[in-house]
């Protein structure tokens, strides 16, 4: 059973919050979605089918050779950071 509390927990685990009304809408959307999912459930005997992750199998996959390297300038690294110090990105103290 999906409840608002559960949805809140899911949202918090994804690192955001919503307001009460929004959780209500989400609860309704879950209902529609789960009904749509039932359409997947309508198709029987699929447990032996391998779930598809890639649109098609590539004839050959090339891995990256380990020889060439590159890096970016420190100005680029930090250009969009909201807070920085020296060459590093600054955040509130992380307690491990």
């Amino acid at each position, binding site marked *: 059973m999906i409840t608002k509390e559960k949805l809140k927990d899911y949202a918090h685990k994804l690192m955001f919050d919503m307001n009460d009304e929004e959780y209500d809408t989400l609860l309704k959307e879950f209902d529609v979605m789960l009904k749509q999912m039932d359409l997947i459930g309508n198709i029987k005997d699929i447990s032996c089918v391998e779930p598809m992750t890639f649109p098609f199998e590539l004839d050959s996959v090339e891995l990256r050779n380990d020889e060439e390297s590159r890096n*970016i300038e420190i100005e680029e690294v930090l250009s969009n950071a909201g807070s920085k110090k020296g*060459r*590093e990105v600054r955040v509130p103290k992380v307690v491990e």
Partner: protein
Amino acid sequence: MEYEVTIGLEVHCEVKTHTKMFSPSLNAYEEMANSNVTEIDLAFPGVLPTVNYEAVKKAVKMSLALNCKVPEKMYFDRKNYYYADLPKGYQITQTHDPVGTNGYINVYVGEEVKKVLIHDIHLEEDTASLDHYDNYSLIDYNRAGIPLLETVTEPCLHSAEEALAFLDALRKIFIYCDISEARTDRGQMRCDVNISLAPKGSQVLGTKVEMKNINSFANVKAAIEYEIERQKEALNKGERIIQETRRYDDVDCKTYRMREKVESIDYKYFIEPNIPPYKLEKEFIEEIRKTIPPLQFERISKYINEYGISHYDASVIVKDKSVAEYFEKCLELGINPKTSANWVTSIILAHLNKTETSIEDLYLTPKMLKQIINLIEEGKISSKQAKEVFYKVVEDKKGPLKIIEELGIKQTSDDSAIRTIVQSILDNNQNLIEEYKGGRSNVLDFFVGQVMKQTRGQANPMMTSSIIKEEIGKR
């Protein structure tokens, strides 16, 4: 009450490559902060991972070295969680079909052989590193994306000693196979320990306690020993062990609770869609298999069983692959195994330790060693002289024959030359001959000493002694 300890290890080891696991940034994180990064390591929007070929080869090599099953295709998965050191919000790792599963290695625990079962080994990427200050932390992304191999054992270890023997053996495999330098002092090898205690004979394991990120073998040992005592004491008092994660503090050598496992985190693993599965062809795997050198355990067993060398000497020799290879080269050249072992373990290793050099830098090749040993066996130089020659060779970087010539040390084994000297000495000491014949055997030593004096130590002592006996007999 007696308890059985059960330990499982998860060991992370950085893979030695030129570039990172999924990006072309340099794999070198000890440089200036954020100097070896690209947009990929920082997870700027729109970037895609590309798999490092060298890292894949090394992962397969390690998998084979651990006798694991290698899958037909190389897949990667996402492990989703939020943390400051994880720019993408997920780590690319391998869960559903890792590069190695169901393996084992044999290790010596003391002189006993222990088979350690490997649950799996998988290839993944390291996280960024955080530097902590009083009221803030700074993020350095140089380490983000460095290839890691995580080896997970079955819970099949039962003491700190076994755990350490395994860790040491594992480390040697990384080094022997040139997969990693595996330096714990640089954080290249880190270990999570799972440990539980159950009453002896119990069919079920006790409650598991996890200790995270222990960075030296000594600390692993201390942490395990502390944890065993702590749990024993608690169980004896009738307390319940809590399933939790603990931190080992190497200052006071105790473990402390980090967090209780209320529910395990759901990492929502799924296959990484940006990395198409890579076929690990049979030929590819076999080519890699060929590059695996004989490993520590095999070598020790062979040295003991085939060459008759002591367990101790064998272990000393295999500590360093190059030393083992040197030793084996000596054997190939026909030097007697025990003689080789003596030379390597006493003279050569002592010299290397003293000079803090490695055997690769040693001027004395196995071939030269053979020359020296031949000369001893031919009676041309004494063992004492041989040592002198050795030090001179490595110091002056000249061949042993050249050194012997320069020093003028050679052992005279010229029968007639020695005989002439002996005869003249005997002629002048008729009274001592009588004493010798009368039973004073130490007179012989006097004669030998005299010969040595006259030849400046170059007469072959054995030969001299027998010539003296012969000549006395004639009189």
